[in-house]
């Protein structure tokens, strides 16, 4: 039986009715990985730990390479963490295991989540299942490609500036970045602590709600985790948007927006209007500064978060043969020079610079102030809107190698997704069509803090009235 192409909820139905077993499903997906992963290259490694198939939700899952999973080598796709076997489970991994989730393996990403194409990985790129010459997006490119290629029923990713939503959009699946504090970050190897959030990449909106039920909730080990009650997110799956107010920021439809993406977004808007939603034009005047603000704040935090990778305790250590300055400094320099890739070095340098004495006020502090302005813009709009709708990314996926040497154009890939991270609000990407070249297009909805239910409701309604999520890449 072909189980790997099912959604998680469809598989659960089969298991409940006795028509399939958890073990069968797990093995079927492993078979699919063996068949197509040589082409897609989503996995960094498969787990050597066999699950016991005893839990209530034995869904085969792929884990991003930055989520600490006990006994697995977790590297953030970086040479510097090669050999680091996590001695503990992240909060989300505990929750997944407690629900019965069956971990298939660890999937690829941009090094330390620095990138939007999965090309900065030390393992080499992952390829987009819809076109193997193209990138899957990033940084959770391995998670998105694995789900799109039926190499996992669903996957965990992390999103700092769009790293769940943009690859979900590039791979034609659903990706949700929850409200900051909704999901514990304990065990997520930090990129930018004030922006990072773990979330689901799934085949449809119902699966997204199901996984949110598993991973959401307070964790006393994460001081930024919020002690708010967790609703049953599947209750939000109502096929009805009548009277809901959808804000369309006029700043979103700007130069650089691919006409096909623009058209798909406008079509989606038309459909939602037809289904009874109220469309309102709104303004987010500070969003043009979002990307710049993001690259100040995120790199500053990253420069500090990555300081612990120094060759002293775990991962890579390179000891130079001859002493240049002193043995310790030489070891630091050589380890970090060889351990980090170009994009990681670029961001560490940017962040170090903006935190330096004499520059702090002009960069980091100013960045945080603009961040507040962007958040205020969004708060203002949410006084009168239930959600804000934009494209997820200004373009569809691009060719491997096309943008890797042009970091600025790569950074613009996240122009629509970054504001949600800066403001800490939830945002989802759902498939909304295909470009002429067959590549998927994604639609982004941003919501009020802790109102993931509204995002799920509108996404679900949209999904129920469109065919996009039912289409599969040919591999």
């Amino acid at each position: 039986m072909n189980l790997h192409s099912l959604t998680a909820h469809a598989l659960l139905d089969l298991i409940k009715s006795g028509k399939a077993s958890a073990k069968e499903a797990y093995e079927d997906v492993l078979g699919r990985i063996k068949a197509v992963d040589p082409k897609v290259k989503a996995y960094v490694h498969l787990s050597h730990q066999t699950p016991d198939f005893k839990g209530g939700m034995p869904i085969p899952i792929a884990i991003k390479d930055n989520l600490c999973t006990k006994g697995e080598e977790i590297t953030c796709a970086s040479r510097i963490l090669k050999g680091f076997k996590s001695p503990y489970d992240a909060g989300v991994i505990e929750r997944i295991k407690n629900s019965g989730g069956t971990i298939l393996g660890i999937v690829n990403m941009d090094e330390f989540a620095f990138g939007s194409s999965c090309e900065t990985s030390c393992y080499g790129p992952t390829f987009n299942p819809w076109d193997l010459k193209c990138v899957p997006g990033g940084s959770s490119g391995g998670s998105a490609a694995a789900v799109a290629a039926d190499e996992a029923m669903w996957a965990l990713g992390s999103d700092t500036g769009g790293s769940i939503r943009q690859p979900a959009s590039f791979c034609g699946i659903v990706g949700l970045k929850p409200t900051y504090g909704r999901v514990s970050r304990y065990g997520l190897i930090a990129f930018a602590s004030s922006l990072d959030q773990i979330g689901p990449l799934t085949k449809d909106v119902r699966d997204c709600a199901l996984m949110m039920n598993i991973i959401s909730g307070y964790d006393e080990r994460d001081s930024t985790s919020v002690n708010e009650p967790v609703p049953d997110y599947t209750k939000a799956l109502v096929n009805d948007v009548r009277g809901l107010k959808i804000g369309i920021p006029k700043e979103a439809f700007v130069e650089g927006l691919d006409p096909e993406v623009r058209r798909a977004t406008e079509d989606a808007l038309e459909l939602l209007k037809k289904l009874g939603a109220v469309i309102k034009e709104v303004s987010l005047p500070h969003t043009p500064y979002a990307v710049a603000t993001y690259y100040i704040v995120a790199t500053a935090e990253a420069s500090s978060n990555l300081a612990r990778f120094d060759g002293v305790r775990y991962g890579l250590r390179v000891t130079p043969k001859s002493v240049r300055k002193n043995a310790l400094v030489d070891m630091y320099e050589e380890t970090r020079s060889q351990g980090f890739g170009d994009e990681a070095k670029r961001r560490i340098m940017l962040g170090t610079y903006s935190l330096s004495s004499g520059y702090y006020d002009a960069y980091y502090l100013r960045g945080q102030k603009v961040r507040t302005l962007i958040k205020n813009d969004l708060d203002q709009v949410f006084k009168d809107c239930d959600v804000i709708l934009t494209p997820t990314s200004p373009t569809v996926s691009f060719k491997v190698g096309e943008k890797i040497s042009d970091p600025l154009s790569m950074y613009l890939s996240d122009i629509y997704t970054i504001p949600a991270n800066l403001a800490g609000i939830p945002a989802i990407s759902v498939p909304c069509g295909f470009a002429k070249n067959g590549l998927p297009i994604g639609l982004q909805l941003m919501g009020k803090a802790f109102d993931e239910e509204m995002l799920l409701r509108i996404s679900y309604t949209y999904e129920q009235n469109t065919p996009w999520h039912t289409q599969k890449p040919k591999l």
Partner: protein
Amino acid sequence: MSVFETVIGLEVHLQLNTKTKIFCSCANQYGCAPNTNVCPVCLGLPGTLPVLNNQALLSAIKVGLALNAEINPFIKFDRKNYYYPDLPKGYQISQFDFPVAKKGYLKIKSSGQEKHIGITRAHLEEDAGKLVHDNSGSCSLADFNRTGTPLIEIVTEPDLRSPQEAYDYLHTLKLTLQYLGVSDCDMEKGSLRCDANVSIRPAGQTTLGTKTELKNMNSFRAVKTALEYEVRRHEQVITAGGKIIQETLLWDDEKAQTRTMRSKEQAHDYRYFPDPDLVPFTIDYKIIDGVRAELPELPQAKFLRFLSQFGLTEYDANILVADNSMADFFEAALKEYPHAKKIANWLGGPVLMELNNRKLSINELKISPKGLVELIAKVEDGLVSNLVGKEVLTLMLDEGKSADTVIKEKGLAQVSDDGALLGIIDEIIAQNAAVVEQVKAGKTNGIGFLVGQAMKKSGGRANPKKLNELITQRISGA
């Protein structure tokens, strides 16, 4: 030659004695096998996050209040970024612009003068690990047990005017901190560490001279000696027309000199920024007031009370107040036996001597306030002499037995029985005929001599009063 004024400011790092570390639940314990009090959080493993230990915050507030400082209800932590192998995250979590406490002072007494030493700030931070350097020089080993020990850094204003004043400040500070019970303040174990900033300037000048920072002093004595050395060096350099270079110096206790650790140019840029893993929060004033209400009586207040309430001399009060547990012991003893002066004499004399000999604190001695009082009462009642009383004390401490038991077991009770004493007296009188004659001739001070001889003969056990009586009777009656 102009006269210089010395200007000193001190930074004291104090390890708080909370049960667990500041950002994880590992035991906060000294002296364990290397790397046994560690977990993914304090090891800074990828993905781990800090969670503030509330007790550490309360202790810091306590210290702030005892230093008469303003408590900042807005609690925020910052990252101090630098690389060192004993610092697993590559940054230390500290407080930069919002210390728990600021603008306080500590009252000290130095060279008979009372003085307020300004406290600039006191902030919370985490301690680093410890490196052990291999003798062969081929490697260094890291022990992360200490990593994450809660520290409070107490920074003074440049208010200290001499190494002696610095020394006196440290003593008063340590005593105050011990009273608070927030730390064992043991410099040998590193639970209290002190860095000093020192500069000199021509007397009368208001601007500060160029300072140097001194590190690596392992005792209060070393702080004083290092400062004396450095002040002399400043004076020599400036008198010779030279300039002091702003730098950090290490004190070498064996060679009794300072050496350069790093110059101003080599100073780190710590790139402080708010730690995004610890959300800033505001503490309720009720919590601060609660800590204030539970502040113990501090040494200076206790000293004054001991003078007025119990009529002790300054000398006695000082001895008792110099150790919080000694003062508590005193008051507990006083409840059993209302003779302050007598208890103070015993505590400041024989008991203190035993403490020093045994290198123990009073709480570690095998004697309770009640036990001590029983002994004092026996001496006062003449059951044992003062001298034997001290011997009984030693035995009580050795064996953990009551005064009664010791006296009975060792047969140390004073002999007052006429029959037993007369035998000794007759012997003494027979041996000292010349003295007896002198006494008879009116030189009564010879009696004291005879009593002393008889006392010796009795092994210190004879009741001296009784001896006196009986000797006088014997001589006059003979």
